[in-house]
């Protein structure tokens, strides 16, 4: 259900190249997104955004009658919809400027269609809170909506930190999330020096989600690097 909701969201694509607009539209359509409009100039983009109220905007930085950064600032005047910059400008300064303005993501051309689809889906899911509500593990189920773990019919509440850590692991399920990445998810921007606390939290999470916490099968340690959550 969740994926369907996301795919119905309205996407406005702004790029000065007709060929690129066509290509990106076709990718999005193939990816299941059906509600797509395009614009080639700042003027068209502003008009479309006002009339149509898109729920995600993909913006190029270089446009014939202005630049994407200032377009973004104008759009923010009346729309809170998430924005993904898709541009040929790959400089750090540009990327930082885009993200600094409050864009949700920044992609540099050239790109692979799958990457675009993944990023678009991620933004939409994050923004419209369409994270999967429950996650099935080998020995338990995590219910993110209620911040609980269901093990053997028993409901165990998750603390805020445990919730944040599990969410970060879930988003990268099957992949290693580094110690630093998990600390950042739980403690924010300056995550240094929380390694020991993290280990304590992981131990407590294991007690909640694993059948036998001393022999974990869902939340695995990758020695020295980080942790990995294995879904059922």
């Amino acid at each position, binding site marked *: 259900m969740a994926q369907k909701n996301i795919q119905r969201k309205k996407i406005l694509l702004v790029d000065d190249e007709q060929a690129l607009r066509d*290509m990106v539209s076709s990718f999005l359509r193939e990816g299941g997104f059906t509600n797509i409009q395009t614009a080639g100039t700042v003027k068209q983009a502003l008009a479309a955004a006002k009339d149509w109220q898109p729920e995600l905007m993909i913006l190029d930085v270089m446009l014939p009658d202005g630049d994407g950064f200032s377009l973004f600032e104008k759009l923010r005047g009346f729309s809170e919809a998430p924005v993904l910059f898709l541009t040929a*400008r*790959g400089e750090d300064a540009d990327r930082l400027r885009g993200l600094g303005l409050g864009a949700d993501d920044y992609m540099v051309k050239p790109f692979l*269609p*799958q990457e675009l689809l993944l990023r678009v889906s991620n933004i939409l899911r994050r923004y419209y809170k369409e994270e999967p509500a429950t996650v099935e593990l080998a020995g338990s189920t995590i219910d993110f909506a209620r911040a609980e773990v269901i093990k053997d019919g028993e409901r165990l509440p998750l603390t805020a930190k445990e919730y944040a850590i599990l969410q970060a692991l879930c988003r990268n399920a099957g992949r290693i999330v580094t*110690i*630093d990445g998990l600390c950042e998810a739980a403690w924010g921007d300056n995550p240094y*020096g929380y390694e020991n606390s993290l280990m304590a939290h992981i131990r407590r999470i294991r007690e909640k989600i694993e059948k036998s916490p001393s022999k974990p099968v869902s939340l695995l340690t990758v020695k020295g*690097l980080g942790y990995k959550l294995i879904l059922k």
Partner: protein
Amino acid sequence: MRSIAKLIRRFAAILAVSTLLVLVLNFVILLVITLRVTPSGAPWTLARETVAALQKTGDRYVLPDSASAALQAENAWAIYIDNATMTVVWHTENLPPEIPMQYTVSDIAALTRGYLQDYPTTTGESEEGLLVVGFPKDRYWKHLYPLWDLDFIRNAPYIVLAVLAINVALIFLIYIIANTRLLKSVKPIADGIRMLPSGEDVYVKEKGLLSDLAADINHTSALLRTQQRELRKKESARANWITGVSHDIRTPLSMVMGYAGQLEESPDLPEADRKKAAVIRQQSVKMKNLVNDLNLASKLEYNMQPLHLEAVSPVSVARQCAADFINADLDGDYPLTWVCDEQAEAVRINGDRDLLHRAVQNLLSNAKVHNPDGCRVSVRVAADKSTCRIAVEDDGFGITDAQLHALQNTPHYMMSDGSTTEPRHGLGLLIVRQIVQAHGGAVAFSHGKNGGFCVEMSFPVVGTANA
């Protein structure tokens, strides 16, 4: 300033030696002249020898021929005055007519001390009389009052030394004053010349003795600055050009990559065509990486890449790269070993997180690219108080000694003006080297312990987590 001090010492030494030489030379010349002008038969000796030679036979005095010859050689005349009568009892044939024959005691005193009728005279005594030798009027000058203070004569050596010392001191004083002024005008010029290579703005006041030189230095400095500006302009033009090209190529490449990716996934295409699309997609990804590398390498080379420096945990950066590497290795062909010592966990280096990430990532993907059939990879992070080292090693094919030597010693073709026909290696390692250098670190390439390739980057530590 070292060279100026050396110059002063050298000048002073030359001055001391030359003063000494002048003194020695003066003494020698004085000695030679004195010996030359003083004949063997000095005037007083001649008188003494003549009176000794004078023989009395009865009432007559006779001078032997040898003594006569000595007198004649000097063109001198002689008289012999008897003590008792005070009259001339003998004289030479050439006696001038104006010489008196009778003398008083005061006459004797006068002629002994000075002249007789303007003839310079010397005397020689015997028991019975006094012999007077008269020389031609223009032959000698007599010092009439040869009387000296005894103390003065006793102290003469000291006085001579004192006079010499005063002379030497005076010479040095004149030298020092003259040189101080010279050095005063040399110093700004020397400073200016020393500053020139630093590339700073050099200006020397154009006045004083060496104003010409100062003007030349100012001119040179201006020229250097212009050249630097021009060079910088050219470099940024080149970097901008590369940025522009890499920017312009991105949009068309997007289409190639995008559609190739789409075709690769398309279920309507036969397997063979999908494979072809996959090759196009893979190659366009390579092109994309190349374009990005080229852009970054040129920016780093010309210092146009802004560094966002902050206190970075090298372990955190390396850990992220290692995790990404493992996450991307779906087939498990590249097992990664992570080694990290406790000290390294705590240290911080002053770095640009993204660039450091890029460096480690480049090394890891290098291992993958050069060992397509898989290999073991290890990432080691170690630190002491001053240095943090990140090493990436594989046990793959490795490189030959010649390749290693070339890697260590020859500049990358992109930065070299030499022949470009030699085998080229990619930009990956060049970027690693540039990033490490931009962080004030060092990079070392070597053979891996198990035959593969090993790169170790070391960075200066700026602090620890607890500090």
